[in-house]
């Protein structure tokens, strides 16, 4: 709870700017540097997870070809791929990366309210990543119990990594949660306490709303993972029986007795389902800002968007057991959880409508970020719709634990947020670096990613309907799986390699444009929100000049009738807005 009285900060003016490389880029307390640190670490570990997914696809596509993939390694790959992608990439990147970068800039603050704790948050996160990666190098390798870490099997022989791997995984998760809590307290407090003058809650851009509510979800939901992590650790290391019932292991009755594996699942998914929205809500927010900016139109139904974020946030805590319809829990719970799950579809659907309705009658600039927005809307509609299958308990039953589930959650939680992340990077890269990302490479990246990922995940749904079970190292001979399904699996693998290769273009673009990109100026997209109004680009330490900005309007004053330009920055006082009726030129300065 180290804290600095932020209210005094503006008058004190001793933001003692760090000078040396170490204080500027390593032990930095600047939210922007921390954001970059978070993002680069998340992307780096995400690349590891991407490689692991390729290992899986090699095995699934060509089941008796590659001698370096044994069942142990396969299950280790799926486990680490899932865990890294969900926690260490998506959560870290969307909250630690985007949250850190955007909250102070969009709220008009100089920094997070607890900068030291913010720095600590990153370093503990890095430590958690290192501990996780260390599990690749211990005897027995990382855990192979599936990313859900279900006991009893995850801590029993017969599962890879049962000695060191699982312990390191749980320790890493505990560290991650500590890091997230330190960061999350910062994000929430900054939004609540450090907004600049005039920035009311309802004037905040939806990105901030999304990140804000997602952070609250995270703060309240991650303790559930912490509780499960601690108890599973005790079951594994000292032999308590919180989750472990009497069971036979390797031909002998173990010493465990009386515990409940279902209890673990309830706790895990009490975290796990809000986690879906911890990833989705920031993505929802960012996409809203992107669509408004590049369609030169206010977000349609801003209030509904805010309410929907809040409603989704609340309901997300009472839908968790839809992951457990066939888990053996009391089947009567199915009625309740199917109902709440389908109810949460309504605010989510409204958000989709409002994105499309924002485009409707807009002035759509088909910039690279806009392409990713459109790609996201398409994949999210698709992934959301398949969620209606799996959320509806009786429909879920034949589809549960099949490739349909894989297709669904990769579409809705893999591809969709990743498209948002890409769109956001193309959108904010100019603010971060002062240069535009290369447009041609961006377009190639978009098309290849959208079509490539769709080629991966669309067929998976149908293989799932056929009945292909997930988490199978090899299908072997069955009475119901035709050879065509195996051929399709090979095709999916080829598409996966294609998509992975295309990401190299993106990575190249990131580095290339850093020095060779076209200079962007301070506000290349003619956007209204505060981060584009900083005196310097990239913003310096402390973000603003001697005075904090003052906000006079909401974040979406695009194409306001009577105004000369098609955007009015939030910082522009009503009396300063240039008016004109006919001399309008919508395209000036915009990269379209």
């Amino acid at each position, binding site marked *: 709870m180290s804290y600095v009285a932020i209210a005094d900060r503006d008058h004190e003016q001793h933001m003692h700017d760090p000078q040396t490389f170490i204080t500027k880029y390593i032990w930095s307390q600047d939210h922007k540097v921390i954001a970059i640190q978070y993002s680069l670490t998340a992307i780096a570990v995400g690349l590891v997870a991407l490689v692991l997914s390729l290992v899986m696809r090699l095995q699934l596509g060509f089941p008796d070809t590659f001698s370096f993939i*044994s*069942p142990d390694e396969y*299950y280790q790959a799926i486990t680490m791929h899932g865990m890294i992608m969900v926690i260490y990439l998506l959560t870290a990147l969307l909250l630690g990366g985007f949250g850190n970068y955007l909250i102070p800039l969009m709220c008009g603050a100089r920094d997070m309210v607890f900068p030291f704790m913010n720095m600590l948050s990153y370093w503990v996160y890095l430590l958690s990543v290192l501990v996780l990666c260390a599990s690749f190098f211990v005897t027995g390798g990382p855990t192979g119990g599936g990313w859900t870490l*279900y006991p*009893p*099997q995850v801590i029993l022989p*017969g*599962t*890879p990594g049962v000695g060191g791997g699982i312990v390191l995984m749980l320790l890493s998760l505990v560290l991650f949660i500590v890091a997230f809590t330190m960061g999350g307290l910062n994000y929430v407090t900054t939004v609540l306490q450090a907004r600049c003058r005039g920035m009311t809650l309802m004037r905040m851009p939806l990105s901030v709303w999304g990140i804000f509510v997602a952070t609250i979800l995270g703060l309240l939901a991650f303790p559930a993972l912490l509780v499960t992590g601690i108890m599973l650790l005790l079951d594994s290391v000292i032999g308590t029986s919180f989750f472990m*019932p*009497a*069971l*036979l292991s*390797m031909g002998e*009755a173990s010493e465990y007795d*009386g515990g409940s*594996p279902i209890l673990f699942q309830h706790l895990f998914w009490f975290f796990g389902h809000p986690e879906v929205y911890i990833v989705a809500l920031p993505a929802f927010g960012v996409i809203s800002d992107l669509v408004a900016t590049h369609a*030169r139109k206010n977000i*349609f*139904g801003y*209030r509904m968007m805010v309410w929907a974020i809040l409603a989704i946030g609340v309901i997300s805590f009472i839908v968790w057991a839809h992951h457990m319809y*066939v888990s*053996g829990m009391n089947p009567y719970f199915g009625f309740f959880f*199917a*109902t709440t799950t389908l109810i949460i579809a*309504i605010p989510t659907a409204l958000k989709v*409508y409002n994105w499309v309705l924002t485009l*409707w009658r*807009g002035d*759509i600039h*088909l910039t690279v970020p806009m392409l990713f927005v*459109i790609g996201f809307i398409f994949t999210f*509609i698709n992934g959301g*719709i*398949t969620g209606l*299958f799996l959320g*509806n308990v*009786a*429909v879920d*039953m*034949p589809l549960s634990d099949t490739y349909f589930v894989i297709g669904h959650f990769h579409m809705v939680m893999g591809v969709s947020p990743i498209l948002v992340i890409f769109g956001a990077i193309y959108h904010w890269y100019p603010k971060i670096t002062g240069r535009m990302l290369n447009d041609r490479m961006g377009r190639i990246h978009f*098309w290849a990613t959208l079509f490539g990922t*769709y080629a991966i995940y*669309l*067929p998976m749904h*149908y293989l799932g*309907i*056929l*009945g292909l079970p*997930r*988490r199978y190292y090899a299908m072997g001979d*069955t009475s*119901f799986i035709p050879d*065509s399904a195996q051929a*399709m699996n090979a095709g999916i693998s080829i598409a996966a390699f294609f998509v992975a290769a295309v990401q190299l273009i993106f990575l190249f673009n990131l580095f290339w444009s850093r020095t060779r990109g076209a200079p962007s100026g301070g506000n290349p997209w003619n956007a209204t929100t505060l981060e584009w109004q900083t005196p310097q680009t990239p913003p310096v330490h402390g973000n603003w000049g001697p005075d904090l900005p003052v906000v006079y309007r909401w974040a979406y004053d695009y*194409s306001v009738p009577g105004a000369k330009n098609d955007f009015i920055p939030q910082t522009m006082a009503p009396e300063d807005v240039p008016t004109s009726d006919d001399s*309008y*030129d*919508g*395209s000036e300065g915009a990269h379209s």
Partner: protein
Amino acid sequence: MAVALGILVLVIITVLFHFLSPWWFTPLAADWASMDLTVDLTFWVTGVVFIILNLFLVWVIVKYRHRKGVRAHYEPESHRLEWWLTVITSIGVIAMLAPGLWVWARVVDVPDDAAEVEVIGQQWHWSFRFPGEDGVLGQTDVFLMNVDNPFGMRPDDPAGRDDILISNPELHLPIGQSYKFVLRSKDVLHNFTVPQFRVKMDLVPGMTPYAWLKPTVAGRYDIMCEELCGIAHYAMRGAVVVEEQAAFEDWLATYPTYAQVLDRPPPDLAAGQAQYAVCSACHGAQGEGNEMLNAPRLAGQGGWYLRRQLENFKHGIRGGDARDSFGAQMAPMAAVLADDVAMANVVAYMESLPDSDPPDTISGDTARGEVIYRTCLSCHGAEGQGIWSQNAPRLNGINDWYLARQLENYRQGIRGSHLQDLYGKQMSLMSIMLRDEQAVRDVVAYINTL
């Protein structure tokens, strides 16, 4: 513009894929047509939304793409429109949810005339138990489970005496009779799935979840485990045979009740020794094996495993493949054992033979073999000692040339491909990881060092 076309193409691809793809539900074999109906209904409702929403998106992109001098319309919100959209969405949601819940109400409610069968999962096999004439399943206890009592039956519970124990991953069911599946796991989570039956449910140690269904179509269906249960999860297969009542009863009668298991007389070693005389011609007087005659060592192998192989040879489950000439030699020999008693006696005698270490004949890269064996040890044990509960035979002290030949047979589908050899099938699924002959030699060389 290109992006509008792109989305349009994706929509068309999706719709075409939906109607043209060869992959759809397996033909239904239980009376859960209502479940398929709700899936179809959900497809129609969401499909219409998918198409309308995306076509609207495409139209919007084309119509409202940036044109010089045209400005976006200014409209912060439209309560009426949002209200309508909420209502329509809610109606769509109710249209899917209501039938879904109605079907679920049937799923949770087991009909009174349903018979019971217990499905038992363990790493990585299925077995089954019928309640017998009293219709009540006897109590079980994990702490009583051992090689002689794999079901963990409690001897003090009278309800268990008439339970019929099916130590085989193949289950038979009579057509048209509703069955309540009581699901029990001995170790970790499993999931009982027969794709053609639609319903599936996890097996949870310490609990007995249930599912019920009425088989309606005769046939043989795969049982798949669909909850990750360790490294051989994908190999945890079984089969359900749905057949006429009479055939079912015949099948059931071949399995013993718990009382019959308890009342079995102790094996007669002397009789077993007499019968073994036939075997000793090839396998040697001490069961030490004979490479010249392609007869593996028997001494030291688990009795339960020898017994199963004898049964398999006798019933043509093993040795029937045209490419398995050595197995074909064994098949008629096993047929010499007339009945259960004879088989029990000879197996008991084989178990009593002295253990010794056969000479090594195969060399390979033991370091690489050790890496490969990491997967094997989950069933066969770190010392290759074999583990009864995984149905995994002993490997150390078995002739290495025999191991190599069997691994090759598994790899090539010579062994483990008979429909009823479900344990063998598991091994053949595991042997997928041995990509070439060198891998076989390496792992056998490593087993030699154990």
